[in-house]
């Protein structure tokens, strides 16, 4: 009896181990995606496509770094494991240069002018001008969040410049001992995403036209100085604390991604595009950091036409309207301007405004390495282990070394 049980069990196990082999035979599309709400939203709408094309759509949700690693590893295979892949927009130059994406124009995907321009530009290689390799799936852009009650207390309007932000932050700190401003200073991607908008507002650029690092510049020094002053009258938090402190009025202002504060139709804090000027009288720069998730067809997909069909379907205006209900962020103007949706989702006009005034992180295949180096130095500067000058000059040196 026991023996038989053991045999049955081992047979079942053996069967389940090799089960993967046969799965490819039926018609199906495999999508490597960023796990979380993107996957939930796609799962919710994919049935329509599956029925129409008689195909199964399988979506793999992965943690961000894992996703990048998996699609890169699979790229060198002749027969790819994935038909469609999602990519964070700063990865686009690296992945496009490596030939991971199939040329969408050749697959008959049209360049739809309805996509917000700055989002569509991310999918082209070279940036903005080249052929189309990916379409914007999720149109995230950083926003400026503030507690309206507190701003009213200090008779402050929504700040338009970082000088004003610092002024309000100081006031909140001195008068009520509140957190003036919350920075997100974790080493790596967070601190870089949190700092760059301020750097841009001061007129800074990470690179000049010849790809020489420009971090160690007057703009860099002023921006980092402001950033450190903000941290001094504020706090350095991770996401959950940023959201709750601003929402509950313990902190006045912070930068953030929309979905942190805005869930469906309600928002827990007020929001505006990120201040675009250094001083009240200064020149305005684009400061809304774009953080779109792109989707493209892999060059080694065995089913490119069908995959391209799915891409058209999932980024279509109709589908985007449905995705919104499941936490999707649109990338099409027509969806943002849809009167019914705009009435329901109050943040749409501001999101669109922010998107139209957005900036992409530098378009280089080496961005993840640049970000790594920059994060190290910024973290050192706010921790006080390096002076502003030393941190910026070291960052400049490290970035130049990576770029050569």
């Amino acid at each position, binding site marked *: 009896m026991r023996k038989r049980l053991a045999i049955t069990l081992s047979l079942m196990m053996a069967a389940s181990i090799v089960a993967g082999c046969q799965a490819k035979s039926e018609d199906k599309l495999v999508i490597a995606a960023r796990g979380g709400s993107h996957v939930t939203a796609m799962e919710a709408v994919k049935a329509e496509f599956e029925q129409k094309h008689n195909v199964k759509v399988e979506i793999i949700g992965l*943690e961000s770094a894992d996703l990048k690693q998996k699609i890169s590893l699979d790229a060198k295979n002749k027969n790819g*494991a994935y038909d469609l892949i999602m990519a964070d927009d700063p990865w686009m130059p690296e992945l496009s240069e490596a030939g991971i994406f199939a040329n969408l124009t050749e697959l008959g995907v049209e360049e739809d002018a309805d996509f917000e321009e700055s989002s569509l530009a991310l999918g082209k290689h070279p940036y903005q001008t080249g052929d189309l390799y990916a379409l914007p799936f999720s149109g995230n852009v950083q926003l400026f969040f503030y507690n309206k009650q507190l701003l009213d207390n200090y008779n402050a309007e929504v700040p338009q410049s970082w000088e004003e932000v610092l002024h309000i932050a100081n006031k909140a700190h001195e008068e009520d001992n509140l957190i003036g401003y919350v920075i997100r200073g974790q080493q790596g991607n967070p601190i870089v995403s949190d700092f760059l908008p301020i750097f841009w507002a001061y007129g800074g650029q990470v690179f000049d036209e010849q790809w020489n690092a420009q971090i160690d510049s007057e703009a860099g020094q002023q921006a980092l100085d402001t950033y450190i002053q903000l941290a001094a009258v504020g706090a350095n938090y991770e996401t959950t604390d940023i959201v709750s402190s601003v929402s509950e009025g313990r902190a006045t202002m912070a930068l953030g991604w929309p979905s942190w504060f805005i869930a469906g139709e309600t928002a827990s804090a007020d929001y505006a595009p990120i201040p675009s000027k250094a001083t009240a009288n200064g020149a305005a720069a684009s400061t809304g950091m774009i953080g779109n998730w792109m989707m493209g067809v892999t060059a080694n997909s065995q089913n490119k036409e069908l995959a391209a069909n799915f891409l058209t379907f999932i980024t279509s205006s109709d589908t985007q309207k449905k995705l919104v209900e499941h936490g999707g962020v649109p990338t099409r103007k027509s969806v943002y301007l849809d009167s019914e949706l705009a009435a329901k989702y109050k943040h749409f006009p501001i999101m669109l405004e922010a998107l139209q005034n957005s900036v992409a992180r530098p378009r280089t295949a080496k961005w993840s390495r640049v970000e790594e180096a920059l994060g190290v130095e910024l973290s050192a500067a706010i921790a006080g282990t390096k002076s502003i000058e030393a941190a910026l000059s070291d960052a400049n040196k490290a970035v130049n070394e990576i770029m050569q």
Partner: protein
Amino acid sequence: MNWLKASPKYVVLTAVVLCTLFPVYWMLVIATQRDIFSKVSILPSSLTLEHVIDIFTKDNYMLPLANSFTITVTSLLIVLVFGLSSAYVLGRRTFRIAYKNTLLVWILLVRVLPPITFALPLYIMMNDAGLLSTKLPIILAHVLVNLPLVIWFMMAFFYSVPEEIEESARMDGASEFVIYSKVILPLVLPGIAAVTILSFMASWNEYLYSVIFIQSPGDFTIPLKLATLNSEQELTEWGKVASGGLVSVIPVLLTAVFMQKHLMNGLTAGAVKE
């Protein structure tokens, strides 16, 4: 009087247990509360099973649970069958093996070297062999993780079984395999139980190889599924994270509770040897 004398010990130990278990308790609280952040308090205020039900209905947690189980158990079987047989030969004095020391160092090195050294080359190898769409690579990886532990741990057990037992069986005309499987193996069962639990723990929580080798969501393991819950542009759903963590620990915990006697016996027996 006796009780009074012992009481400071109990106070200290209670403190230790409280510190150890508090994070686990807190996980339970977060997993069963509707809104964790509106009011932070030691006692749960609004009990709900919503999150736990959610991860099963919406996130289909059964599948990764089943996968983790298949992968862990299969790799354990392979590790035990092969690991025990070689530990036997390496541990008993009757066998003389050429290059025994080289082999032993090699096995130990596999345990000592950082897994990140093996992961990428193995991916390339498995990929070329066309195995990546199956569960085989991840099972083999788990075998690689646990094999050295099983061999080194069990060698000591085999070594300690008195030679007379083996000799008398040989006198009775038993074949080598019968001596191994029917005579010696039953004597080292406590050790097998202990090393099985240790390997089970390592395999159940293994992440690095899983993330590199597993290709399809149908093959996802628990740690892989849990990792997707932590993200950059979205707020982490703490209720789900905590529920997922709780669910993931239940199978291992059950094993540990029910096999606790064997585990302790095995470890105790192992402690005198070496």
